[in-house]
């Protein structure tokens, strides 16, 4: 099995008057170890696609296979488990807990998949080393730069050893230097065999990916 995920003729329609079609017949395949960028202007359906890919939302019609398993017919609980264990999220605004140390924030990854705390700690230390923040364990996120915060968030996503790293505008809140450091980190992760899917509107971010897919008005081109 070479595909991490397959979207087949996926539609997502929001009930309104008139109904809003956010995704229309989307077909998308992502191979294991691939670095894919999805680009599109705001309002093009990027966020909806992210939610569907991240198992946070269910398509109105079509099929979504994640590691070969059909997710559209899964029970909510099973889908939640899959999301927690196989997908790592990286958000534009980091979503770190400001009152918890860097190490504790990273340890949150895998909290809901039943990994013992000792194991999560070992993995968190390893993940922080991987993103180059091994010396910042005791810091609170408020004392870190934007780039460092995003690297902490990436470390948190890596803790569970996910099949897919799903990044939503990962550099949207960062300046040039920090953007470069995060993109360098993505290259390192790619080289180590991770599957990366980056949603962005920034052409320089998309340039670094192996493959670019454009989404306009809910359609992939």
């Amino acid at each position, binding site marked *: 099995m070479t595909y991490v995920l397959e979207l087949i003729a996926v539609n997502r329609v929001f009930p309104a008057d008139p109904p809003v079609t956010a995704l229309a017949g989307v077909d998308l395949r992502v191979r294991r170890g691939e670095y894919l960028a999805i680009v599109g202007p705001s309002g093009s359906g990027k966020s909806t696609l992210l*939610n569907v890919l*991240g198992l*946070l*939302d269910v398509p109105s019609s079509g099929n979504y296979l994640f590691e070969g398993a059909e997710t559209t017919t899964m029970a909510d*609980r099973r889908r*939640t*488990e899959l*999301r*927690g*264990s196989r997908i790592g*999220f990286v*958000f534009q*605004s*980091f*979503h770190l*807990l400001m009152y918890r140390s860097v190490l504790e924030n990273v340890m*949150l*990854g*895998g*909290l*809901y*998949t039943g990994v013992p705390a000792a194991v999560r700690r070992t993995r968190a230390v390893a993940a922080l080393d991987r993103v180059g923040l091994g010396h910042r364990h005791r810091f609170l996120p408020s004392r870190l730069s934007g780039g460092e915060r995003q690297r902490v968030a990436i470390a948190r996503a890596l803790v569970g050893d996910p099949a897919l790293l799903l990044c939503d505008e990962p550099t949207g809140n960062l300046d040039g230097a920090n953007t470069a450091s995060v993109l360098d980190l993505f290259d390192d992760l790619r080289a180590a065999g991770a599957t990366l899917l980056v949603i962005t509107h920034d052409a320089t971010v998309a340039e670094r990916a192996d493959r670019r897919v454009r989404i306009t008005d809910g359609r992939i081109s």
Partner: protein
Amino acid sequence: MKVRDLITEAVSGVGARPARTVLTIAGVVVGIGTLVTTLGVSATAGNQIAGRFDAATATGITVHVPVPTGKDAPPAVSWSAPGNVARLNGVTAIAAWSRTPEGRDLPVRANAVRDPTRILDRLLPVLGSTETLPAATRASLAAGRFFDAGHVRRRDRVAVLGALAAEQLGLTRIDNQPAVLVDGTAFTVIGILGTVGRQDQQVLGTAVILPWTAADDGLDLGPISTVAITTALGAAQLIARQAPVALDPNDPEGLEVDAPPDPASLRGGVARDVSGLLLILGLVSLIVGALGIANVTLVTVLERTAEIGLRRAMGARRRDIAIQFLLESTVIGLLGGIVGASAGILAVVAISVVKQWTPVVDGTLAAASPLVGALVGLLAGLYPAMRAARMQPVEALRGPS
């Protein structure tokens, strides 16, 4: 910006988050309610306690004499018997009277003119009394005087009217020596009663009171039906036991005695009043606390929208989110319970030290307080936890970071 616009903005702000507004208002409602209740209930309880103590200091005893079984049967209490009671140590006044049986009041009118257009006859209770009635019932005289032993001995046909009876008969002055016709027999009015001090003898206000000898002659009121005794302070219980024997040595059990309550049972009643009041106040404070926890937890949930979304994205189920917030509010309640119980015990000890009392602390209650606090926190966290669990991760992640 106009004041009206400001008000519009404020009101729409209040209406924008109904659940939060309701919780906040509920806190204020219960808080203000507590304040009003505290003042109201303490005044009420104070009144209740005062009422009980007033009843305690009351020194009035009333003995009800049963109606003789047959027409020729000897009276249970003879007219000389009250004199026996008067000699008991502790009795300050005693009066005895016969009265028209209940529902068989006699027609009384103020003059003899027959005027078919007016109703002149009033049906009033008629009493044949001993001359000591004002002292024994703590009645004052609004006008004139009460009859004395001479009137009784001479069987004089004189009458004293209760205040309401005088008003109904249209008598306001007695210096012109008015007369009343009781069932056709004329009596000279020599006095009008003012207020009657004893609350259990208010019937006197509506009555026509005659010397018992004169009443016996013409009106056949029968033997003594009621004996009213006023005692010295603290003697009421003793006299209540002795009076029946003095009044009717043959059958003291046949008399019905109304005596003021026993001081021991009274103390218990007052203690129950006070602790009941304090219990209510404590429970109300607990409700205020619960509403506070609910409100703060709800605000926390709204503030931590992004965190909830993040946790959901990392594989937390709705149940995990609900349990987290329930636990948080339960822990707050538990901590509050522990600190509250400790502070309460310290307060009892401190008060005891100041007042030089021996502190008494209910160990079970002190041990259960943290649990009660935890329970309050759990209940208060139910709604916010439900709100947190209902959040969609999609929406939550777009919230503030």
